[in-house]
């Protein structure tokens, strides 16, 4: 597994632990159930904490706790299961979460573009993924028709900018 954050390949910084694993020192990502069961003791650890949501675990369940998390990891059990795209958008657009949203699980190169647009800023990818592949996949399309969680202008707004500029040029020529 490789980790890409904001377009850069970086070292793994969090340890993902399971439901019954002993907690190592340092930053950890815990399953939602563990967060819900051990919330108080996890907070007192004073190390960065992440939580992982499985497909079907609605982010509403962590909405009130978001301040505690450095990472929210959203699982793709298989690339076809696209629930986490909506979860990411809720975290970004609705809940105003500004920490890291990480895609984990079956994260394939042909999906990077969609993930980044939905507000994922970290992707856990297969070892064969190179910076070139990442750039190519994320940069597949210059323009986007619809607004999403990134700050790309939509084609609609670009068209209106162009039209306004043309109007100004006409006015100046008159």
């Amino acid at each position, binding site marked *: 597994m490789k980790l890409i954050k904001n377009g850069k390949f970086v070292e793994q910084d969090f340890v993902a632990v399971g439901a019954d694993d002993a907690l190592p020192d340092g930053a950890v990502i815990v399953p939602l159930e563990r967060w819900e069961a051990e919330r108080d003791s996890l907070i007192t650890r004073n190390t960065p904490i992440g939580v992982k949501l499985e497909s079907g675990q609605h982010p509403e369940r962590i909405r009130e706790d978001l301040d505690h998390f450095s990472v929210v990891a959203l699982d793709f059990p298989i690339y*076809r*299961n696209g629930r986490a795209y909506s979860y990411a958008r809720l975290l970004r657009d609705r809940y105003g979460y500004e920490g890291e949203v990480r895609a984990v699980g079956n994260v394939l190169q042909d999906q990077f573009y*969609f993930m980044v647009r939905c507000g994922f800023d970290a992707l856990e990818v297969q070892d064969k993924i190179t910076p070139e592949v990442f750039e190519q996949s994320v940069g597949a*399309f*210059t323009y*986007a*028709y*619809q607004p999403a969680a990134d700050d790309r202008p939509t084609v609609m707004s670009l068209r209106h900018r162009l039209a306004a500029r043309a109007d100004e040029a006409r006015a100046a020529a008159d």
Partner: protein
Amino acid sequence: MYRYDEFDHSLVKERVEQFRGQVARRLDGDITEDEFKPIRLMNGLYLQLHAYMLRVAVPYGTLSSKQLRKLADIARKYDRGYGHFTTRQNLQYNWPALKDVPAILDELASVEMHCIQTSGNCIRNVTSDQYAGAAKDEVEDPRIISEVIRQWSTFHPEFSFLPRKFKIAVSGTEADRAAIKVHDIGIQIVTNDKGEVGYQVYVGGGLGRTPMIGKKIGDFVPKADLLAYLEAVMRVYNMNGRRDNLYKSRIKILVHEIGAEEMQRQVEEEFAEIRKTGALNLPQDEIDRIKAYFADPAFEDLSDDAAELDAAIAADKGFAHWVKNNTAAHKKPGYAIVNISLKPIGGTPGDCSADQMDAVAALAEKYSFDELRVTHEQNLTLAHVRKADLKAVYDALKAADLATANVNLITDQIACPGLDYCNLANARSIPIAQEISNRFADIERQHDIGELKINTSGCINACGHHHVGHIGILGVDKKGVEYYQVTLGGSADENTAIGDILGPAFTEQEIPDAIEKIVKIYLDTRQDGERFIDTYRRVGIQPFKENVYEAH
């Protein structure tokens, strides 16, 4: 017609380049067929029984003459000289070679066409009324909002991996020619009591294994809010739709399981939140910009009487049948809507040769403002033909074997590709449609029977829309033998209904006789002016049940 600008061109070109790279990786063996599958499915490329199949998007069924000529060229150059028009108003090529697909996509892009989102679990090609812009009672041209939806849904990052495929249809008239109530989302353009134009929204309709009629959850969605509303429906579905069972993944199952009221509540809640952000607000000037592309063509001021037309009708019986049956009233005096049947007697429903495509393109160019429509019933439509030109159009169609006067009659059947092409099918569909077509070939008899729609599917996935055929035929496999189950009373119009099962299934040999008996019972039972569906609604299935199986 809509025309691409630099932004639309850029997206389509970049998509072709991306796919070219992916195909190269596949041909080099860098990726396996398994890994290639999700990629090709995002580009309309299926692996069928014998070969790849490429599905080309025809947005809301509208084509220019130039585009149709290009489709003909591609059919000649890369396929076997024909294409197949589908119930989603698209065109399929049945025999492309994988290595040629990037070149085909290049050719399509040169005429502003593509294969984007014609397969996969995403928002598919939006379909609409083939009479758009020509129908008398239209509230607003449905292509305007269809184009807005096309753009919003193209490469939508959140909704490209839905639980299942997702189909949207739009109708701008009360008479529904777009089958909106058997779509995942159906949009009816309406006017409210203040005279404002907005949208009624139906969700959860669909055919397949579990046919359902859509439920109205949006009574009047204002124009500016339509995309916000659609995004709300899609998000509720994307998060809550089932993903554990392929056959329970469509939105209709979600709506059925939680109920239409709960669906409405969740959508309203999500809609209110999305609306607050304003990000999807659709400004009037954007609607106006797109509307300008669909402005009326330069109609002439004509009188509605056409003496020469009446004379031609009197002189030529074939032409008289064709005018009566294949043309429809136009909003402008002196004009008519022309339906071109792709259902020749004994032919394959929806197939069209390259030469026929060229012939239709030439007619559209000369007589119908350079554009044409594909219908979801697998026919073509020239929307704006002067009545004075009808004879010339008919003669040219006749020369191209395209003048069969059977639109909406018993031989105007919908059929899926079935076991002749499709690897999901249990039984053949096309030969069944052909046998019925041959049996009822006599045009006088067809006219006497009147409107009667027979739809045939080769398996329960229902691509041939059998549930909504006045007579529906479903192919099933019983221990290696093809059997055909018959339903009656289905309808896909504004009075949408799912057909009722008649009784035990028939063999292929029995089917034409069974249809014959059903028709006879109708003819014996009908009252003045009743179509088959009217009689069926009046008398129900019982008289058919009692009499069809008599001789068995």
